[in-house]
């Protein structure tokens, strides 16, 4: 095991709740919540200063942001926020699963894209009866994402290529490959865009009743969330991941195969990312559209949510929801006040930098020794 890998493990300590007395767990959570609120507050103040410098009124801008995130006629903006939170929280959970076991998965974007494309192609070209088609397409997406992430694990464990680097760099060929496949082999030439044909209705993830834009992808996400929580709190595998994340040497001493654990964690992480791709394709777009999964930076916002919340699933969900609200709110803010929506991304990064400098996300002794 290289020490690069050992170094990466130290991040997980702040968010994880190891088997320690309960009162201390609660206290550390409370500390984290306070740090989060304080960082967000300072971040918003800095954001206000930026808005002011660029010649806009911060109060108006923030009012438009809150309105754009939560209200609107029939709470349509709140629905948008929830729909945007689905991929962000999903990508956050994908990052957090690897994170918890002490591995960096910066390849969410590539896994998301390949998962989305695989689900679209499965929905279009695999002859299956209607009730099986949608679940099969989602499964194909999960498999594609999981296998691609496993390839990075293979590079780490067989060839000692650090996961931090391989996962990041693998994003680029994945994106290029998906563009190539869509453009040269599966393109719907009836449209002017680089996209596949629309998938059959049977493969679509349906809208929820109630006349809103909420779709059943929400339930897939919730089951991933509960599954991740169950895994980390109630299973041996989750305990082993936790231990490996906190102290890989101790975990290995205790008889845990870090390699097996690494493959499992990376496959699971990539599979969640692939599933998110499938949800976007089968619920939102109805086809694979080149760039539509990457342009909104879901993978990166999700990663930021995981960095913000540590690796506890519910914390990631809360952070992801918060970031989704910031983004949809910023969209509304741009429309009413002309402050560019990219302010949301700036705010997210500032909040993370503040929280990293305030809380216990510290490197261990290995930096000096």
């Amino acid at each position, binding site marked *: 095991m290289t020490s*690069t890998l050992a170094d990466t493990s130290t991040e997980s300590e702040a968010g994880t709740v190891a088997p320690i007395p309960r009162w201390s767990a609660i206290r550390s959570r409370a500390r984290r919540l306070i740090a989060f609120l304080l960082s967000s507050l300072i971040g918003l103040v800095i954001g206000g200063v930026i808005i002011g410098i660029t010649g806009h009124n911060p109060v108006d801008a923030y009012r438009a942001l809150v309105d754009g995130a939560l209200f609107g006629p029939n709470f349509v903006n709140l629905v948008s926020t929830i729909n945007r939170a689905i991929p962000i929280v999903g990508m956050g959970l994908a990052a957090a699963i690897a994170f918890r076991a002490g591995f960096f998965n910066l390849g969410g974007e590539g896994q998301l894209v390949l998962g989305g494309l695989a689900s679209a192609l499965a929905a279009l070209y695999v002859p299956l009866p209607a009730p099986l088609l949608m679940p099969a397409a989602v499964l194909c997406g999960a498999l594609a994402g999981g296998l691609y992430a496993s390839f990075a694990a293979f590079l780490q464990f067989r060839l000692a*290529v650090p996961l931090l680097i391989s996962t990041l760099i693998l994003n680029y060929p994945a994106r290029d490959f998906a563009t190539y496949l869509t453009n040269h082999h599966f393109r719907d030439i009836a449209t002017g865009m680089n996209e596949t044909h629309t998938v059959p209705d049977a493969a679509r993830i349906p809208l929820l009743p109630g006349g809103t834009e909420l779709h059943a992808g929400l339930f897939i996400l919730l089951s991933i969330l509960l599954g991740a929580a169950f895994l980390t709190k109630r299973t041996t595998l989750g305990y082993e991941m936790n231990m490996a994340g906190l102290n890989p040497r101790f975990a290995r001493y205790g008889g845990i195969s870090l390699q097996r654990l690494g493959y499992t964690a990376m496959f699971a992480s990539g599979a969640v990312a692939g599933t998110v791709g499938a949800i976007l394709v089968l619920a939102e777009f109805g086809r694979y559209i080149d760039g539509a999964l990457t342009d909104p930076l879901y993978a990166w916002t999700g990663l930021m949510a995981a960095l913000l919340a540590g690796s506890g699933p519910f914390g990631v969900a809360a952070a992801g929801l918060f970031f989704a609200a910031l983004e949809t709110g910023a969209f509304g803010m741009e429309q009413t006040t002309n402050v560019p929506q990219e302010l949301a*991304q700036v705010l997210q990064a500032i909040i993370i*930098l503040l929280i990293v400098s305030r809380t216990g996300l510290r490197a261990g002794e290995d930096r000096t020794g």
Partner: protein
Amino acid sequence: MSELHSIFNDTLLNSTVRSVAPILLAGLGGLLCARVGVFNVALEGLMLIGAFFAVVGSYYSGHAMVGVVTAIAAGALFATVLAVLAVSLGGNEVVIGIALNLLATGLTVFLMRTMFSVQGEFQDDRIKGFPALSLGPVGNIPILGPIVSGHTWIVYCSWLLVIATYVLLFRMPLGLRMRGVGELPQAAASLGVSVRKMQYTALILSGALCGLAGAQLSLSLRLFTENMSAGRGWIAVVAVMLGQANPFGVLGASALFGFADAVGFNLQGNLPSELTGAIPYVATLMALAIYQARRRATRSAGTPLEGS
């Protein structure tokens, strides 16, 4: 055969030289950080910041040189943030680096939209770039001449900086102190060397170098596009590993990636551009895998970042 000839010609090597410069400059920055024991994964973001502020400086002043100075200053300032958070406040340098990369992406787009009211790409006649320098008689040397001649001064400067970095690290007291901090901080500290000061120095220098790398990217094209660093900062991180944190090693690794980049570009007539675009990234991973396999075969200890 004639196809091969159209791919491997002296234009290829000429564009290799051009592609190498940004990776090399960022790699030299990453190398300095590795030497003081800081793993800098923010090279990508620093380069992007440099590319943007080079255009800002050049656009408002009408002088390319002002653009370069602005880029270097912006890169150094951004790296100072990294230094404060990672060195002084003890935050995890990888997490901070990733967050800074994301901040750079968001901030450059935000600023581009507020300052220039454009989206995606900013191109304007008022952005001044650098002319390609002809090296006089050197340009007339057969084979070598057309390859090394006709680049911006930043490209030639990057070669000199390889030597300068070597001299700094291995021939100057400052470099000795920096290496001491990276190898055995307690020992360096007990001899009165400030670990913090050395790490700040290396990080700020790396920011300046990445700023210059970014200036080469944007001013050679006289435009800025969203995310125009496109993973080059990460390739530079790999170049530091492959080059074992040695300036000439980093030069060799950067040359390899620049060559892959140029081959991909030249193959565009023969293969779909989506496939050729992936070549540098695949080459990077393959080179790293081969390097690690050979390193393991010789059973050397330690991480690549700990240097030679």
